[in-house]
């Protein structure tokens, strides 16, 4: 290996810093550090002349390690590193520190102390730089095809977007027809137009106008050449890695040949088997061979094999003019290879019969919003007439009950968010078609938070729809008349009402679609506490998952209205396209590495890794060792902190690098205060230090910051080492527990700190010398206060006793 030659580049920020820091002293100090061959000073190094100085030094092979002390490190680091990389030096041989925000500003009132601290910081950066090693770029292939699971509006819209962008898309729907919940909902708020229309494929744009939205059946959706639609199909297994998933699908038989069927309807007319039609909320019967609604895709009948008599009947086979009916069809297994997977499985109504006091299971005139939607739909089982299912007479008095099993800590604690609008929509549609209908909505809180939504509420009041603030305790049925009585308190009037009703419509909670849990297991995805798919970050990455290459959209993550579902679908499509577009994943090998000699059989790390990047493999000596996937590893180091045998290291944050840094930071004090090592994670912890400096908050210069990828990397012995190399106190500064950028790191660190405190006590060291802090970027004041607090605490405790002797 080449001799290590460090170049140190000191930015004085246009002489701003030199008013506080003694640059001559710094230069003199650095000059004597072994390995340093070049020292440059300029007003900035991240662009212009300054940057050119670095480039020239690297190009001229004068140096092979770069240490830059620059302000705005997070911004400047990117530019410096990228430029250095272009000159041919591995970017991981560059170390950038911030003498302005981490030293000069926060200690400007004690300039001499600041200069001493700056020396320690430079030394730490140089020592670390000397130990840095180059890290390679890896490439992984990505297939330019996607699997979309779920054929509702979310799945269809995502599929349209991805096919428009040129990717092969396989759309899998478990039902025999596309459309999902949207097809059954009839109409959508806030436009009151058909639920089942989408933004059509781009090919259509050429012939129609670009603003048009279209019914699915005339959108050209089913004819998109690079779209493979698989209805009546479910995912059996998914294997492989991001970019190359092997998917096994079971396609159930339709018993009708899609290519031959001409939709003449002779088969359904002759079929003798009638069963309640689930699709239409059992408000009518259908035949064993059937189609949901006209113009649905695929426009081909299907046979319900749970009720069909097959060859004992076969009347449909006899009448079919095109021989399209094939009773001997079997399930088919389909294998696909795709680069990316988009989950669009949606949601469904909660089973209201669980709330026994509402008698959904035994009073036929208690129905749910979905059944009402079917009644309102002109294609529906009642042709748009609102009836009492018990005798099919027109319903004149309707009571709607909101939050059924929703906002209910016994069943689903969350607000399903769309039900108020659904009920308002239904009430208004009914009222406009049949103005004599008496409609009362019982609500806890009416929530109309979206654009144009409040207008719905307003319109409903204008139409004469009545509102009762109160959640009914039960629905009774008069034994003589059979009429329903809704027992409710109007909380505003403090009055008890017994509302008479022909029909009671429940607004049930919206829960994850059936099969969500099983699919999550197949895909290795997490569910949230409400059993929906959990997104990577609900604020910034709402359609991504912790698994690279797998995306979520629509109701699979939470109940959504149509506008939000569209947004989500487009977002997931963009995310997937971004992933698929280059045909490869390029990734630095900034990952963990296992020393197989030490590793053995304990199985802790695979469980702890937040990314599922670690698997156990058998070695020749028949014991298990951990194997880390460079593709999946995010380089956080949580496994390093977990490994009881010290068998795992991060390539970019080795123990010897950390120790050298620690030693250097503690080697010079220059203040009269006890030295404190602040171990900060590279995310919220370190940026909180930045913000303290940017806001020019003051804290004592005895506090020295060491950056680690994530506090989850910490091992108990490292904390003890800090005391050994001269720290009088140690701060561990990480993200908030639920905001850790590596999911669990901050929580792990907290436990380590607890453990280390117990050990310190054992060794006769006051455990108060060690403390964990959690903060976010904007809480610079919190960091400054913590630094001040710990310094005062240590001053009270006096010098570390055990250190003296050793």
């Amino acid at each position, binding site marked *: 290996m080449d001799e290590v030659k460090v170049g140190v580049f000191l930015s004085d920020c246009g002489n701003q810093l030199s008013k506080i820091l003694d640059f001559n002293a710094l230069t003199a100090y650095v000059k004597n550090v072994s390995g340093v061959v070049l020292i440059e000073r300029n007003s900035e190094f991240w662009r212009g002349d300054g940057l050119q100085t670095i480039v020239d030094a690297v190009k001229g092979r004068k140096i092979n390690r770069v240490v830059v002390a620059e302000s705005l490190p997070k911004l400047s680091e990117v530019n410096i590193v990228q430029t250095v990389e272009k000159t041919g030096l591995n970017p991981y041989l560059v170390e950038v520190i911030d003498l302005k925000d981490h030293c000069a500003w926060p200690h400007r009132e004690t300039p001499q102390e600041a200069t001493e601290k700056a020396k320690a910081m430079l030394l730490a950066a140089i020592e670390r730089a000397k130990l840095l090693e180059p890290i390679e770029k890896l490439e992984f292939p990505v297939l330019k095809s996607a699997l979309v699971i779920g054929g509702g509006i979310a799945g269809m819209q995502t599929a349209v977007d991805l096919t428009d962008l040129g990717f092969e898309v396989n759309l899998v729907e478990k039902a025999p027809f596309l459309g999902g919940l949207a097809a059954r909902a009839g109409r959508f708020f806030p436009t009151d137009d058909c639920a089942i229309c989408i933004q059509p494929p781009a090919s259509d744009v050429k012939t129609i106008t670009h603003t048009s939205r279209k019914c699915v059946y005339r959108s050209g959706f089913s004819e998109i050449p690079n779209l493979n639609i698989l209805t009546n199909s479910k995912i059996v297994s998914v294997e492989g890695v991001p970019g190359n998933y092997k998917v096994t699908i079971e396609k159930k038989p339709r018993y009708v040949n899609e290519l031959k069927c001409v939709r003449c309807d002779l088969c359904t007319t002759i079929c003798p088997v009638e069963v309640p039609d689930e699709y239409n909320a059992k408000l009518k019967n259908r035949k064993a061979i059937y189609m949901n609604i006209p113009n649905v895709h695929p426009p081909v009948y299907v046979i319900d094999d749970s009720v069909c008599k097959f060859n004992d009947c076969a009347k449909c086979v006899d009448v079919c003019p095109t021989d399209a009916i094939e009773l001997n069809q079997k399930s088919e297994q389909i294998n696909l290879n795709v680069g990316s997977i988009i989950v669009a499985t949606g949601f469904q109504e909660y089973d209201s019969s669980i709330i*026994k*006091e509402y008698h959904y299971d035994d009073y036929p005139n208690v129905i749910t919003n979905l059944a009402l939607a079917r009644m309102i739909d002109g294609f529906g089982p009642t042709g748009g007439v609102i009836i009492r299912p018990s005798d099919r007479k027109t319903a004149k008095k309707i009571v709607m009950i909101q939050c059924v099993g929703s906002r209910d800590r016994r069943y689903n604690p969350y607000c399903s968010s769309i039900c108020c609008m659904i009920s308002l929509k239904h009430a208004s549609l009914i009222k406009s078609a049949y103005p004599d209908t008496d409609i009362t909505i019982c609500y806890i809180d009416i929530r109309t938070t979206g654009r144009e939504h409040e207008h719905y509420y307003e319109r409903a009041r204008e139409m004469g729809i009545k509102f009762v603030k109160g959640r009914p305790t039960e629905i*009774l049925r008069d*034994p003589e008349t059979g009429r329903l009585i809704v027992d409710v308190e109007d909380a505003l009037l403090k009055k008890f009402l017994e509302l008479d009703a022909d029909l009671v419509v429940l607004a049930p909670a919206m829960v994850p679609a059936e099969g969500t849990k099983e699919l999550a297991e197949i895909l290795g995805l997490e569910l949230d506490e409400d059993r929906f798919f959990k997104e990577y970050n609900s604020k910034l990455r709402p359609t991504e998952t912790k698994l690279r290459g797998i995306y979520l959209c629509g109701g699979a993550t939470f109940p959504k209205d149509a506008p939000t579902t569209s947004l989500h679908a487009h977002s997931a499509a963009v995310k997937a396209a971004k992933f698929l577009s280059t045909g490869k994943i390029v990734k630095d090998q900034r990952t963990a590495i296992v020393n197989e000699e030490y590793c053995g059989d304990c199985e802790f790390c695979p469980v702890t890794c937040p990314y599922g990047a670690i698997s156990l493999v058998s070695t020749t000596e028949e014991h298990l060792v951990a194997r880390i996937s460079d593709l999946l590893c995010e380089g956080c180091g949580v496994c390093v902190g977990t490994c009881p045998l010290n068998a795992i290291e991060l390539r970019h944050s080795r123990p010897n690098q950390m120790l050298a840094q620690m030693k250097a930071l503690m080697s010079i004090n220059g203040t009269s205060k006890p030295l404190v090592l602040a171990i900060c994670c590279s995310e919220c912890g370190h940026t909180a230090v930045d913000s303290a400096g940017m806001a020019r908050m003051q804290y004592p210069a005895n506090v020295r910051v060491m950056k680690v990828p994530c506090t989850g990397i910490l091992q108990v012995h490292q904390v003890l080492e800090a005391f050994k190399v001269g720290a009088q106190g140690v701060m561990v500064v990480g993200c908030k527990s639920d905001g850790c950028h590596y999911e669990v790191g901050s929580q792990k660190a907290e436990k380590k700190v607890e453990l280390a405190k117990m050990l310190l006590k054992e060794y006769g060291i006051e455990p108060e010398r060690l403390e964990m802090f959690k903060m976010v970027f904007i809480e610079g004041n919190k960091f400054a206060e913590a630094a001040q607090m710990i310094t005062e605490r240590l001053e009270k405790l006096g010098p570390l006793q055990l250190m003296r002797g050793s």
Partner: protein
Amino acid sequence: MTSYAIFLGCTIPARQPNYELSARKALAKLGIELIDLANMTCCAPPPIQSINLEASLAIAAYNICLAEEADLNLITLCTGCFESLSIANTMLKADKQLKAKINRILSQAGKEFLGSKEVKHYLQVVTDDVGLERLKQNVSKPLTNLKVAAFYGCHALRPSELLKFDDPERPQIFESLIETLGAKNVEYRNKLKCCGGLLRGYSDDLALNMAREKLVNTTKAGADCIATLCPFCFVALDIGQMQVKLKFNEIYDMPVLHYSELLALALGIDPEELALKTHKIKVDKVLNKII
């Protein structure tokens, strides 16, 4: 033979020999041995819980301790006792902190709650230990033609999360036991709602209003009698009927019997042995119908 420590509570031994006699005789006939333990106290029902919840839990736990020491499960006749003891038993078994707290109190009385025993209402014992099949075989005088309005009372069913007696919205246990005796179960409105028993003594007016509603609804449903499980419900509906008569000038003449009394009669026990004369509303109508 299955043995239980019997928890009589306060009201039954002092005021309702009809309940105690019928229960003791019927259960003996069904092979359930009842053992009377010394040193039991009040169960700490809602009126005592209203005074001090913590003390009430401790009192209930104290009584369970006596059963634990005797290595017996507890059987209660009174639904109020069932609720107080059962809630304490379930809560203390589930919550270690609470258990420790209550045990600190119990240590003053030299006791420690272990959580090793069950508290059962006698209806559960008949259903689970005897079983409907065996009960049916033992019925020698089926109550054919008798229309019975089952009145659970509140504290057999609720709070259901702790009592786990039956589905609080659609219970079946009582109805099945009535039908096993050969009688017909009658449904009526607001069957699962309170009789007002616990308001007696604080607001008799309201209590009577609530009891009256039961009488109205059971009469409307054509019941021959109301069956109860709890001495408080019994008082509210039996003695309560006399008061309803005075206050509202309404006569319902609706006999109220404890289920144990119907059970004893169906098992062929001589009505003379059951102190049926202690009922305020005469039960002759019922006896005539079944004999």
